[in-house]
């Protein structure tokens, strides 16, 4: 088991964003983490890499307890997070972005070749200032930058957000191909349909808790998934009808 999270609680100030979540990711898997906005998915990822200090619970990566370590240690644990909103270094060139991504990788030039092979578009634009790339290219750059560190575990936070449909497809195809490269992926997404297509298993989060877990194929038809997004109401919900 590559990643194991037990009873993780974390949040900001008095806001408890993750309320005792447990999950695991096995080596070689692609695992989806679904849920509506504000469900606590991003906070969970942040806690995994140390951007957010967990309040309690434990995080084990490859069997080693990592919670409480500063965020820059995650790379040495072979874990890299591709944060939400890309967060590329906008004023630096594509090449520089990648090189910084391989900060701890002594073979960074070789690794860059591999990334370029994977994303030929980045090679074409390697001298360009990253901020001028299109949204999809920026997302590729962000993933490429993460791969520069040769992670075992890749954490992706909403890679499809704000992308054109064609681009979304491409990004997901890329995620699917990660498997071949031997990278384990934990994918946080709002796009449930696409996620469940590429993932092996998935978890559904609601208000900081994991409410559902299962194989991707089963979940694709589970009513809870749609409820989590579109708020289809259960019969027993206490609210009265509001229509006039």
């Amino acid at each position, binding site marked *: 088991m590559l990643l194991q999270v037990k009873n993780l609680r974390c949040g900001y100030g008095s806001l408890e964003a993750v309320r005792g979540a447990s999950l695991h990711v096995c080596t070689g898997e692609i695992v989806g983490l679904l849920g509506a906005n504000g469900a606590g998915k991003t906070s969970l990822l942040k806690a995994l890499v140390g951007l957010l200090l967990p309040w309690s619970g434990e995080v084990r990566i490859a069997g080693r307890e990592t919670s409480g370590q500063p965020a820059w240690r995650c790379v040495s644990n072979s874990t890299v997070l591709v944060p939400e909103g890309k967060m590329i270094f906008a004023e630096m060139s594509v090449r520089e972005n990648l090189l910084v991504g391989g900060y701890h990788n002594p073979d960074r030039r070789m690794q860059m070749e591999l990334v370029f092979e994977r994303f030929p578009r980045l090679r074409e634009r390697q001298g360009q200032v990253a901020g001028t790339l299109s949204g999809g290219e920026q997302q590729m750059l962000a993933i490429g930058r993460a791969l520069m560190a040769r992670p075992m575990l890749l954490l992706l936070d909403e890679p499809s957000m704000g992308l054109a449909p064609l681009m979304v497809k491409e990004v997901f195809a890329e995620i699917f191909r990660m498997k071949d490269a031997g990278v384990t992926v934990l994918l946080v997404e709002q796009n449930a349909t696409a996620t469940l297509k590429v993932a092996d298993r998935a978890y559904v989060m609601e208000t900081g808790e994991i409410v559902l877990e299962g194989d991707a194929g089963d979940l694709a038809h589970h009513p809870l998934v749609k409820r989590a997004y*579109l708020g289809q109401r259960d019969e027993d919900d206490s609210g009265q009808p509001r229509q006039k």
Partner: protein
Amino acid sequence: MALLETETLRKSFGGLLAVDGVSFKVEVGQITSLIGPNGAGKTTLFNLVTGLLPPDRGTVRFKDQSVTGWKPHQIARAGMSRTFQNPSLFGRMNVLENVMVGRHCCSDSGFWGCALRLPSQKREEQRIRAASLEELDFVGLAYLASFPASALTFGQRRMVELARALATEPEMLLLDEPASGLNTSEKRELGDLIIRVRKRGVTILLVEHDMSMVMGLSDSVVVLHNGAKIAEGTPVEIQNDEKVVRVYLGGEVENVAAG
């Protein structure tokens, strides 16, 4: 009658078009929801309406007068009050004082009156205190009045912020994701509270991600996507709108069975 009306509002940041020609109406006494995926431009639209951002183009009409380009405090005085996505309580005041800030636009003592504690100011202060306590009681937190705002739980902060917004005696209340960060029971309480606010005759505009809440409360729903309005209608209409479902779940719709 439309209390709030926007016409082809447009706002861009640098090259990014955040709100692209949005026109919508909020009817008096109704709960209108504004939904859409992340980055759809809901909060920007909110900020345009409440004056925190000036629109590039388009107009905002409130109570049949144009409030385009007004400053937030002028708009607040006109009767439009709002809450924020992250409850922005004033951390160094206690809960009651926070709500009393909301009474600012309903009072008028100045520096001199306050410094000298003139009788009129004292009476006004009493009124402010009483009214604020009433609002706190309305949201059910009167017992927390003397607590420092920074010591509250997240859910309590939301409620206090709501009380503060209500203290301005608004005709219209804009709530920016009031349910985010709340747990299930807190959400239910919030929903009840919103109903009670509406009963007081306050028109409500709601931005929310929690769909059960939106669908349960709203009289009408406006859906934004990439800064543009893509649908408008009753909750039932919206839930069955293909475009909306596609925007929300992504990919091919038929793969996800209806609940």
